[in-house]
């Protein structure tokens, strides 16, 4: 028992935010992170499962974990930042899931201001959009020390390397700063 407490005590705290344009999958990414790190409690999972079924969706919609306001669920969008918490054996994480709509940019700024890492998602089909650029610029303006660009929904472009490379090239031109690249797909099946 004492060992258990000791391990838990040795955490360090990392705050990160997710940003990017509307429907690039920010809330779903967080839902998936929480699911994979086993941070979703049984009663929470059952709640979003029945909510997904009610909406007529075949798969469990993990975005419902963070979109907690009624207006958000109705419109299927994120209006304000939602904070979520999870931990791995090494770190404790505070995630700020920020909205993608231009009208709610101030909420994105609120969520990102305290972040150590900003994650910006890009839909592989859409490429770089206005909000992608805006969020990248805001993140650098806020002096967030690390920026990670995640190219998402790779399954919808059949995991084509060239789709990934294209976006990467365009990003390099438009951002002209060193950014980390990663390819990602989290299509969720059960």
């Amino acid at each position, binding site marked *: *028992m*004492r060992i*258990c*407490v000791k391990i*838990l*005590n040795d*955490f*360090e*705290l990392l705050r990160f935010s997710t940003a990017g344009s509307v429907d690039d999958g920010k809330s779903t990414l967080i839902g998936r992170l929480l699911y994979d790190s086993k941070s979703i*409690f*049984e*009663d*929470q999972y059952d709640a979003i499962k029945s909510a997904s079924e009610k909406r007529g969706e075949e798969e469990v919609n993990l975005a419902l*974990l*963070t979109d*907690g*306001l*009624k*207006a958000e*669920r109705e419109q299927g969008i994120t*209006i*304000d*930042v*939602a*904070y*979520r*918490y999870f931990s791995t054996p090494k770190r*404790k994480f*505070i995630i700020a899931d920020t909205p993608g709509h231009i009208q709610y940019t*101030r*909420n994105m*700024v*609120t969520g990102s*201001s*305290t972040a150590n890492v900003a994650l910006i998602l890009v839909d592989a089909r859409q490429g770089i959009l206005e909000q992608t650029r805006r969020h990248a610029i805001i993140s650098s303006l806020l002096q967030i020390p690390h920026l990670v660009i995640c190219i998402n929904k790779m399954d919808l472009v059949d995991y084509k390397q060239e789709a990934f490379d294209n976006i990467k090239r365009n990003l390099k031109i438009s951002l002209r700063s060193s950014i980390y690249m990663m390819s990602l797909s989290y299509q969720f099946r059960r």
Partner: protein
Amino acid sequence: MNYRLHHLKELEAESIFILREVAAQFSNPVLLFSGGKDSIIVSYLAKKAFFPAKIPFALLHIDTGHNFPETIEYRDFWVKELGCRLLVGSVQDAIDQGKVTEEKGFNASRNFLQTTVLLESLENGKFDAAIGGARRDEEKARAKERFFSHRDEFGQWDPKNQRPELWNLFNARKHLGEHFRVFPISNWTELDVWEYLAAEKVPLPSLYFAHKRKVFERDGILLADSDFIPKKPHEIPLEMTVRCRTIGDVSCTGVWESEASTIEEIIEEVATSRKTERGGRTDDKRSHRKVINC
């Protein structure tokens, strides 16, 4: 130089900063105290924030009259320990005066009547900030709330129109009659709270530790046998070893079967639990629609 702060120390520093900010920006704040672990931790942090001076605001307890006796015993002990003033807003008085109507039926709870009494207490006391122990990990709507959360003159929160809150800048501007709810431990998780209480050796109400109690089951939740809850004929109380994961009004606080009798055992239980702490709160289940709505 590699400077690394313990995660609890970082959370503590954040909360203490916010508590001091409240004292600096508001003219008449008050700390909402329920007797649960979250309000205990907030009041404990308040003591730390202003030590060696006294906490510069009073504690406000909204008393439903349907308490566990242990809660009131602890409340009085803790107020003495902190050396601060205690104010009580009584739901019973509001019922007697006809301001609110008590719910009827088996699932009647005074939990919802608390809001009216709270708003009235805030208005009567001319409080412009109410510090609470809500945490973002507790529940989906709370996950969206700012540290400084604005309330209009009717005490309502407008989640679709929250203010920006950048870095450590907190905006407390408001019109006359409006107030703020402030949540210093927004970023703490249930596990953080327990680890901190253990590390700081904060005295806790006995309800949190495993004890023998007469309980009965309703809708999959174990409720404490008490005169305040009318029982259906088939609900026969049995003696079990239980503990509370959250403490509220008797009528809505579910208890859990548990053998955890020390704080270390509680931490182990919380760390391995597959259910949310509020899974045992009947008020949350009832208010699901409202929660999403708010």
